[in-house]
């Protein structure tokens, strides 16, 4: 979105404006998992000759469409169902990503597109010309939806309500189109009337106010009537139906909580805190919660832990907990706070376009951060900021950058902002999930940077302004055209910032919002005694991927003997060195307290210092006001001072990490002191445990005394009289609880000179387990016990194996036997007395995998597979699946990989499907540069199919499949595919032979370009790389490639090297190029793809053949022709001269031709969704959903083509 455009206000991409929508679901069948209902949209045309209305709808079977009670013809076409329509043998991810982005664009509501195209009946044209209101009534049904709406139906006896069956809407970004036809955009606001008729035992929870609940005539069902008078985007509409228990919040009666049967006590406890979050947000925003009510629903098999919708939030039921649970409590409260922040920014205030998403995510994340600061304290807040910063930095450096505000105004792909990524960032639906989470993380960090610049007060004023504008607008009638005030845009947001604060934050925005990448600083220093000056050198790395150059102020804090001093350096283009004058002369003899930054004065033992220098420690950018990674060099004693005396937890954590490199007794002492210090932030102490373990391992030969932390643990947690026995559990003090949990885990990482875990430590941990006694504790010890098992797992070292002997019980290491004994007992006890969230089972499974991996126990996935089955608690399943994924990698098991991929396709729980792909991506069985027996053509086909058509019901899943494909095969053609056997390929349509594009040398490829397209520089780079890759691979693996080729030939009974399939494949290759190039030029010239396709389809249909020369009037179609396998008279593909093998040629041609005819015929049937055919076509309907863009375009029913 261009910013100037935003200034003028919001311009709808649609030729009409939606004002009101009715959604009525008459029937929900849990047994069949089906939904029947209708929607009615009230729209006002904004242009005179509106004859088509495009809406979004996926999966829905549409029975009938009426416009103002007149039957209307419609077409349902969803190109995202199958992205690459042809059986492309190219298998090139670059190609796929472009095609996918194009498909998503083709139905993108923000571009005025949609899957469902309704023709306004001609009788109404006059009516439309007067811009009078239209009512579009659509009857639809959903059968076994695979996305958007999730049914949970436990398989047991009893009525649906008794079984706890429920259904809820879910999805990633705008996914409402999956369950009812709508304008699925965050920018199209309207008021809503929602009606749900459900079983009398069920409750339907939805957005807005519940107006009334009415029984049906047979009294067996009831209808819930909801009204949402605040204009809301369809994407923020949600639904949850189930036999919920209802809890009215005791503090705020307009807030209602819902949970599944039997969980009411947990719900009471979990939500007892929510009102405080409400109060906090309302106070800082000085604004009432915008909706008249709020509902929280806790459901099983959640898509995400927290999903915020207008006036309601859907949570995972696994967030519920009792008062006995410590660890889950802060996590759940965070989720509640997050959901509530998004109510203000995200639901109430929506966004204008995808490129404004960062503002909403940023603000909601930022105010959530403020809540964290208030609730958990500054330490926790700073720790969190640091954590988020580290995460985003690591991600950007790994993948090459996250762009908050992508601008696609010009459409010039050559400055494609995300060329380093394997997916398009133009649409939320094409984003990798990990990228999206990082995007949110960066957004709130940037908001914090803005706050740093303009002060929190102004920041909150801006938010307040946005909210009050929106709430004024929301109470206005549609006619006042005020509703767009409820949409936030980047430009609008920046404008209010400058209005409120009067400050120019443009450089900041340019740096972090309009540009991707983070800053990487390397710092080092020298002290010039003569001049009493600190010479600081700060270098930047801005050439690596994901980095950018930083120019501007940078704060440096120097702690000297006389106090702490802040200096602001100007980081400029060429200046690396900065001289900072020191305030204090070195004087170490005078005993004097040393003032710290916070005004505190402390005594320090200065003996470790350099006698000549007054510097205690130096910190670069202590406030984290740059998104950066700092690698700073200072001596070990400085880090130690920093750890001991700097009061900022971030500094302490940095010091701990740095001390890992200094395994000295002094470091040991500093860390132990921190560990013991109760005033110290517990997370710092926990971190110190692990650092101490590492240091101890580095110092193993010189280490004196008992194993690290042992005596400390004994002193803190064991009985005074018998130090080998731990006290009975009392977790009243949470800081020490967390420490008690962590220390054994860290201790288990200790190793002796033989690189084994010391026997003493193992026995110590076993004793902790043995003497663990929770009877007197009022908190559950399940997390503690789980971590003790983790500790056992940490103590495991690789088995000494002689000649790869088979692992049996007889040669089991005695220590491992003890460990196994414990694990067996714990795992079995879990069956009888399950722990909260089965944390112990999870830890046991992980430990067993560790034992397998280290060769103590035979490696076998059977156990994990049984725990991964549907019906186990989700955490257990994930742990088990993680083990299977790991097994697949280590043992290179094709069978297990297949098993996982089958689960990705079939598992009932969307989160599991997503998670498997995610885990496979993070721990891949092989990667693109690796030889692996798993990497074969069938796998390529399978994954391709998965992302191409198998995951069309779930954006997140599809992107997950893309990620996996990228990890396994890279951007270019997978290396395991057989190399083309022919150097020359026939392009039959052009009657030309060309060099096989996959092996075209670089120079040739370059030569081609000007001929084909004039504007593809950005893309061509990618292609050269592709070809480079292939060249390399060709030489490197020619033997294997050949073998594979032979094998493949055997599979296909086509002996001839020139068999049609083979040729086709190559053709596809060339088409890939054309298509991509085409889409580039399309962007630039802003051709309406649909008109192109319409007319194209028309020609195709009527002229009825391939070889016809095109008419002069359709020159544009010519260039697009290739894409749809049309005869094309476009510029020749190749500079090579014609050469044809005539007989083969015609053979192939025939084949090709025939196929097309068949396809056409089929589609002709499928796509006539005209209601007249409705009854007749009902059985065929399911097919209709599996169309693809090209086919659909080509069979516009004649009545619709102009």
């Amino acid at each position, binding site marked *: 979105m261009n910013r100037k455009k935003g200034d003028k206000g919001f311009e709808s991409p649609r030729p009409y404006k939606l004002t009101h929508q009715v959604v009525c679901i008459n029937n929900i069948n849990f047994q069949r998992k089906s939904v029947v209902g209708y929607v009615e949209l009230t729209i006002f045309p904004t242009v005179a000759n509106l004859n088509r209305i495009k809406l979004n709808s996926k999966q829905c079977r549409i029975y009938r469409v009426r416009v103002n009670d007149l039957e209307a013809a419609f077409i349902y076409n969803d190109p995202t169902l199958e992205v690459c329509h042809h059986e492309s043998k190219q298998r090139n991810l670059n190609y796929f990503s472009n095609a996918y982005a194009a498909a998503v664009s083709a139905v993108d509501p923000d571009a005025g597109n949609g899957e469902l195209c309704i023709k306004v009946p001609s009788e109404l044209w006059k009516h439309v010309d007067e811009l009078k209101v239209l009512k579009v009534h659509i009857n639809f049904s959903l059968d076994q939806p695979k996305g958007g709406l999730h049914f949970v139906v436990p398989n047991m006896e009893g009525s649906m309500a008794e079984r706890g069956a429920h259904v809820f809407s879910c999805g990633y970004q705008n996914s409402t189109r999956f369950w009812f036809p709508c304008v699925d955009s965050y920018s199209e606001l309207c008021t809503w009337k929602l009606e749900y008729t459900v079983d009398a035992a069920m*409750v339907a929870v939805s957005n807005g106010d519940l107006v009334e609940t009415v029984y049906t005539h047979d009294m067996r069902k009831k209808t819930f009537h909801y009204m949402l008078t605040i204009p809301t985007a369809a994407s923020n509409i949600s639904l949850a139906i189930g036999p919920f228990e209802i809890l009215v919040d005791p503090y705020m009666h307009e807030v209602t909580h819902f949970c599944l049967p039997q969980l009411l006590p947990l719900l009471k406890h979990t939500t007892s805190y929510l009102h405080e979050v409400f109060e906090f947000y309302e106070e800082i925003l000085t604004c009432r919660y915008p909706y008249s009510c709020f509902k929280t629903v806790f459901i099983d098999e959640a898509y995400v832990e927290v999903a915020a919708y207008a006036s309601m939030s859907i949570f995972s039921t696994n967030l519920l907990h009792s008062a006995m649970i410590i660890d889950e409590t802060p996590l759940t409260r965070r989720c509640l706070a997050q959901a509530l922040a998004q109510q203000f920014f995200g639901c109430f205030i929506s966004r204008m376009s995808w490129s404004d998403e960062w503002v909403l995510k940023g603000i909601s994340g930022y105010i959530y951060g403020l809540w964290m600061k208030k609730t*958990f304290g*500054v330490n926790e807040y700073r720790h969190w900021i640091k954590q988020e910063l580290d995460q985003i930095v690591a991600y950007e450096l790994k993948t090459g950058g996250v762009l908050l505000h992508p601008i696609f105004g010009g459409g010039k792909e050559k400055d494609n902002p995300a060329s380093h990524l394997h997916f398009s960032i133009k649409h939320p639906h094409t984003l990798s999930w990990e990228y999206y989470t990082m995007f949110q993380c960066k957004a709130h960090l940037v908001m914090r940077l803005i706050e740093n610049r303009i002060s929190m007060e102004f920041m909150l004023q801006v938010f307040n302004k946005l909210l009050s504008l929106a709430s004024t607008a929301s109470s206005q009638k549609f006619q006042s055209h005020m509703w767009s005030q409820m949409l936030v845009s980047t430009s609008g947001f920046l404008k209010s910032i400058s209005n409120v604060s009067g400050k120019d934050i443009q450089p900041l925005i340019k740096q972090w919002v309009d540009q991707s990448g983070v800053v990487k600083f390397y710092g080092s220093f020298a002290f010039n005694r003569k001049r009493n000056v600190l010479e600081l050198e700060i270098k930047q790395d801005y050439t690596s991927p994901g980095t950018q150059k930083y120019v501007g102020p940078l704060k440096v804090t120097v702690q000297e003997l006389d106090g702490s001093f802040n200096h602001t350096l100007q980081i400029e283009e060429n200046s690396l060195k900065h001289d900072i004058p020191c305030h204090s002369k070195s004087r170490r003899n005078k005993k004097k307290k040393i003032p710290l930054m916070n005004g505190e004065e402390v005594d320090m033992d200065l003996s470790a210092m350099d006698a000549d220098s007054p510097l205690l420690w130096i910190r670069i950018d202590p406030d984290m006001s740059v998104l950066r990674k700092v690698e700073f060099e200072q001596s070990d004693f400085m880090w130690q001072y920093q750890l001991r005396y700097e009061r900022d937890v971030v500094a302490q954590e940095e010091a701990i990490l740095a001390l890992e490199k200094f395994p000295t007794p002094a470091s040991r002492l500093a860390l132990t002191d921190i560990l013991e210090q109760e005033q110290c932030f517990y997370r710092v102490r926990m971190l110190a445990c692990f650092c101490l373990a590492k240091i101890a391992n580095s110092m193993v030969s010189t280490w004196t005394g008992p194993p690290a932390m042992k005596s400390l643990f004994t002193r803190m947690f064991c009985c005074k009289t018998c130090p080998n026995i731990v006290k009975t559990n009392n977790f009243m003090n949470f800081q020490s609880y967390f420490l008690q949990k962590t220390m054994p885990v860290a201790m288990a990482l200790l190793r002796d000179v033989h690189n084994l875990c010391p026997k003493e430590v193992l026995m110590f941990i076993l004793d902790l387990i043995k003497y663990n006694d929770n009877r007197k504790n009022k908190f559950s010890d399940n997390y503690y016990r789980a971590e003790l098992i983790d500790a056992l797992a940490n103590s495991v070292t690789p088995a000494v194996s002689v000649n790869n002997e088979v692992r049996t019980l007889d040669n089991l290491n005695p220590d491992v036997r003890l460990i196994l004994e414990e694990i067996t007992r714990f795992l079995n006890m879990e069956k009888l007395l399950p722990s909260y969230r*089965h944390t112990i089972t999870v830890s046991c499974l992980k430990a067993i995998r560790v034992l397998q991996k280290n060769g103590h126990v035979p490696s076998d996935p059977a156990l994990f597979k049984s725990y991964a089955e*549907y019906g186990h608690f989700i955490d257990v399943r994930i742990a088990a699946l993680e083990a299977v994924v790991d097994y697949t990698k280590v043992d290179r098991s094709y069978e297990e990989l297949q098993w996982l991929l089958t689960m990705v396709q079939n598992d009932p729980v969307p989160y599991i499907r997503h998670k498997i792909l995610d885990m496979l991506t993070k721990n891949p069985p092989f990667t693109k540069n690796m030889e692996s027996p798993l990497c074969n053509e069938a796998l390529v086909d399978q994954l391709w199919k998965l992302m191409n058509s198998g995951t069309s019901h779930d954006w997140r899943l599809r992107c997950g499949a893309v990620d996996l494909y990228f990890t396994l095969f890279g951007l270019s053609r997978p290396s395991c595919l057989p190399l083309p056997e022919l150097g020359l390929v026939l392009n039959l349509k052009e009657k030309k032979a060309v060099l096989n594009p996959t092996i075209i040398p670089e120079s040739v490829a370059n030569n081609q370009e000007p001929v084909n397209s004039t504007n593809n520089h950005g893309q061509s780079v990618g292609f050269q790389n592709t070809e480079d890759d292939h060249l390399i691979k060709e030489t490197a693996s020619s033997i294997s490639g050949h073998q594979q080729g032979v094998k493949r030939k055997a599979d296909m009974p086509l002996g001839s090297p020139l068999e049609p399939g083979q040729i086709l494949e190559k053709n596809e290759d060339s088409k890939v190029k054309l298509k991509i190039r085409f889409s580039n030029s399309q962007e630039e010239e802003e051709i309406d793809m649909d008109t192109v396709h319409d007319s194209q389809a028309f020609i195709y249909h009527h002229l009825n053949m391939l070889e016809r020369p095109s008419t002069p009037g359709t020159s544009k179609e010519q260039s697009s022709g290739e894409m749809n396998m049309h005869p094309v008279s476009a510029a020749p593909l190749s500079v090579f001269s014609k050469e044809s093998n005539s007989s083969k040629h015609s053979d192939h041609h025939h084949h090709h031709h025939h196929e097309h005819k068949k396809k056409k015929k089929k589609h002709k049937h499928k796509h006539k969704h005209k209601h007249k055919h409705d009854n007749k076509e009902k059985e065929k309907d399911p097919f209709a959903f599996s169309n693809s863009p090209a086919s659909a375009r080509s069979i516009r029913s004649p009545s619709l083509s102009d």
Partner: protein
Amino acid sequence: MRTAPYGSKMADTASGGSGTRSGSKHATTPADNYYLARRRTLQVVVSSLLTEAGFESAEKAAVETLTEMLQSYISEIGRSAKSYCEHTARTQPTLSDIVVTLVEMGFNVETLPAYAKRSQRMVITAPPVTNQPVTPKALTAGQNKPHPSHIPGHFPEFPDPHTYIKTPTYREPVSDYQVLREKAASQRRDVERALTRFMAKTGETQSLFKDDVSTFPLIAARPFTVPYLTALLPSELEMQQMEETDSSEQDDQTDTENLPLHMSTDDSGPEKENASVLQQNTSLSGSRNGEENVIDNPYLRPVKKPKIRRKK
């Protein structure tokens, strides 16, 4: 002619008779001998009475039956008389008790003196004085304590010393913390292991080692129909524990609800405050029950009846 009724009587009491007979046959203890001697005297009495009445001979069974009846009769008199005497708060029966008893049993007492002085009565020698059988004391442990001087002698004796004297055990009770903990731990461990082994033996198992299924048997994983319930709800044991700790540490209970606050804030200072605030809160929520009628939440409103169908 005279024997006939006895024959029938005998049949009636046959079982009783045989019972006593078998009892007397095997009598060996001194107590039995004592009773036997008494009975024999009674038999003599019955026989002489029969003789007096003119019988020349009697079947043994008939005599036995009559003896039995007589014994019962006399026993009943004694029992009844004892009751009457106890009823009047005495321990020794008096003549009047006997008289009342006899009257009560339907016996004409007036006739008794005349009967006693009848001429043809036979006098039987008194039965040989046998020692009252000594009931062997079941458990005599130690000497009964003599009464102290201030207790009158008619008061019952002290009971056996073992019933009231603390018996010192030979070993000190285990109060050593270490041993206790050790014991508790190993006990629990043993129970757990036994239980899980049992469960594993009786149900399906999985094993980590293909060749050995018994050393580390794992109870097979079984999917649940509603997995979240077992995962989220505290087990009964935990609930029980929670109640126990609740009652003992009521003050502390409340601040669990504040829990994350404490993670960052330093320590006990604010803890108390929060606790009190929360106590207020909980009391607030407690009093909510009364207000509940006032709450106007759409989900609590009654479901409306369907409207009467409009034109259709």
